[in-house]
């Protein structure tokens, strides 16, 4: 379990980083919490690692208008603990599920998104929130919406010579509520199935958007406003949590059937994952709606 030899460079600016990435066979390393296991198992043997930890402009976490901008070297734990992330409740719900505290100490938000593991939490959060990815290269910068960013397992829109310099997370608006849940064999393991939910109640009728993960090779977004409205028709606009979960569960199985397209593995069959998603959708859409309507009385617990 030792990485193969590689050349190493630690530039001090984004311009220098993308200059290095223009070389063949270069790979960015920030926290390394996804990359180092890949190197240790020699699943990957890049010729050059470009360490971006000396670039101060990538170490920024800032609120700009309705966005929270998370630089490429911002650790997951820093985002979790920083007061700024209170404006993005979904990311706060999701981060405790990312690996373990020891992983989040070093692992970066952008790194997890760029690695694009199909079972990872943060790509699903980015999709659910309709975040924007900022990519830098010697050709300049470009922005890619999260829904177009994930192209397959461990594959993204990032070109080999590009750096995911920043992820732009929209801050929560009044009337929005969020839910997040996952099932894993042990806490901190990759999720067998998980769901991130955003509900909006500001308009005439509530909207619900979710993103499933662990059930396909990419995060799977879906609009489930119809599911929520049908459930609310059955329960009335101020249901109890239990009543709403039950009402949502009526049709959550149909949603799950459409969303789960994994072939399954030794840990969980597709059928089992559909059941997990069905339960998670009912529970977390209810939770998000109740938070959005501020009628949440029960203790919020992931």
């Amino acid at each position, binding site marked *: *379990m*030792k*990485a*193969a*030899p*590689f*050349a*190493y*460079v*630690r*530039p*001090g600016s984004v311009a220098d980083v993308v200059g*290095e990435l223009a070389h063949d066979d270069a790979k960015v*390393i920030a926290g*390394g*919490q996804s990359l*180092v*296991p890949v*190197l*240790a*198992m020699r699943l990957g043997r890049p*010729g*050059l*690692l470009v*360490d971006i*930890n*000396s*670039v*101060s402009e990538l*170490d920024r976490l800032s609120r700009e208008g309705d966005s929270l901008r998370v630089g490429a070297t911002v650790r997951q*734990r820093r985002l979790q603990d920083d007061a700024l992330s209170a404006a993005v409740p979904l990311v706060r719900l999701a981060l405790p599920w990312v*690996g*373990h*505290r*020891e*992983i989040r*100490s*070093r692992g970066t938000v952008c790194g997890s998104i760029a690695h694009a593991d199909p079972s990872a939490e943060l790509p699903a959060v980015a999709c659910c929130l309709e975040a924007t990815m900022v990519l830098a290269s010697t050709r300049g910068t470009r922005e890619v919406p999260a829904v177009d960013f994930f192209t397959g397992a461990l594959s993204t829109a990032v070109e080999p010579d590009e750096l995911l310099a920043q992820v732009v997370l929209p801050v929560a608006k009044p009337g929005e509520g969020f839910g997040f849940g996952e099932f894993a064999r*042990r*806490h*901190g393991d990759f999720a067998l199935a998980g769901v991130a939910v955003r509900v909006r109640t500001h308009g005439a009728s509530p909207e619900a958007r979710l993103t499933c993960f662990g059930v396909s090779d990419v995060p799977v977004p879906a609009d489930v406003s119809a599911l929520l409205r049908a459930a609310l028709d059955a329960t009335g606009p101020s249901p109890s949590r239990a009543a709403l979960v039950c009402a949502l569960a009526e049709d959550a199985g149909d949603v799950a059937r459409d969303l789960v397209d994994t072939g399954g593995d030794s840990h969980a069959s597709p059928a089992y994952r559909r059941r997990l998603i069905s339960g998670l959708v009912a529970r977390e859409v209810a939770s998000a709606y109740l938070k959005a309507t501020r009628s949440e009385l029960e203790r919020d617990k992931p």
Partner: protein
Amino acid sequence: MNLPETRARTEADQTVAVTMTVNGSEVAMSLPARVTLSDALRDHLGLTGTHVGCEHGICGMCTVLVDGDAARACLLFAVQLDGAEITTVEGLGRQDDLHPLQEAFGKHHGLQCGFCTPGFLMSSYDLLTHEPEVRREDLPAELSGVLCRCTGYRNIIDAVDEVAEAHRDGLPGPGNCGKHALVGRTPAGVSGSGAAAEVAADEAASGHPDEITLPSGEPTIGIEVTSQLSSSPEQVARVFRDVRLLARCLPGAELTEELGDDWYAGRARIALGPVRLSFHGLAQVLEQSDERIRMNAQGKDTGGGGAQARIEMVAAAREDGGTSLQADADVFLTGRIAGFGRSLAGDVSRRMFEDFARAVDRAAAGEEPDASARPPGALSLLWSTLADRTRQRVRRVREARRGRRPRGRHGA
């Protein structure tokens, strides 16, 4: 946290310079970029308390603190940690002054084989430092970053919960961080403490460094032995004045080179049962008179341990015409030899000083010291150490002062 300094491109077959603080000691290393922090700690700094399990970030055995936060040392390349502050389990507590977490793990039998213990200690230290209000029911999830295959976690939870309850207002910090000599196990010796690296450079230039820098803080062993010699003070003075003769009195030691300016190079072999240590090192005589000799010494065990010592010996006349020889030494051990029980290492060292005193007595009387001919006998030394311990238990009742024997067995 300060950002690491930039580094120009280093090719795959070259090494990268990195400076970090480990348990309070600044260390400078030059490593291939692919060396993980766990390997650097273990192989290059001799800190084998950090265990290595899966080496791909699953098991948590290698958990250390990086700038105060727990992280997996196998998932970090050491060269990335330029300027970082690392705390390992060695920095958490001392054998005679354990950290409350270590005490609690012992009390609750929170370990069986001990392999996961460093990981659990560092992970729970991080948890209780950052979340002192953590509830017992959350401990299983909060500690899920480390795996244990022996005790089934229940006792570990008990131990951490007890410490959490006792320290809601703040967990005591690591109790063993200070300047230590860190010596690696890698024969190539590309590493060492900042001081040691400088020493190596100096040695290459002039044969010896300007001075031997001893670590601050508590020595691993403090030795205080008084032996009664039958030789007269004048006879002992003759030995004190002759460093070559003196060296031959030290069991297993051999003076290999006189470097001038009161500097000497030598080697020492010690055999204890299956344990074989072979030290190469330097000594600087700081004071040398008829009745007093004072020196600093440092040595590196070929197997990956290090020792530094401050030694003072004083000879005093006795009423019966003999000489009382008092030896005081502060010994700092690192690497695998530091893994010996502190008391066993102390006992062995005291025994060596007693043998030394006997040899000085013989040399003073004009006989061949007979100590350098062979390393201290494996069995005899260990036996006498163990036998001594049994006797000491009886004697300790009467002897109030630790480390001071009423009278050397080989005295007059």
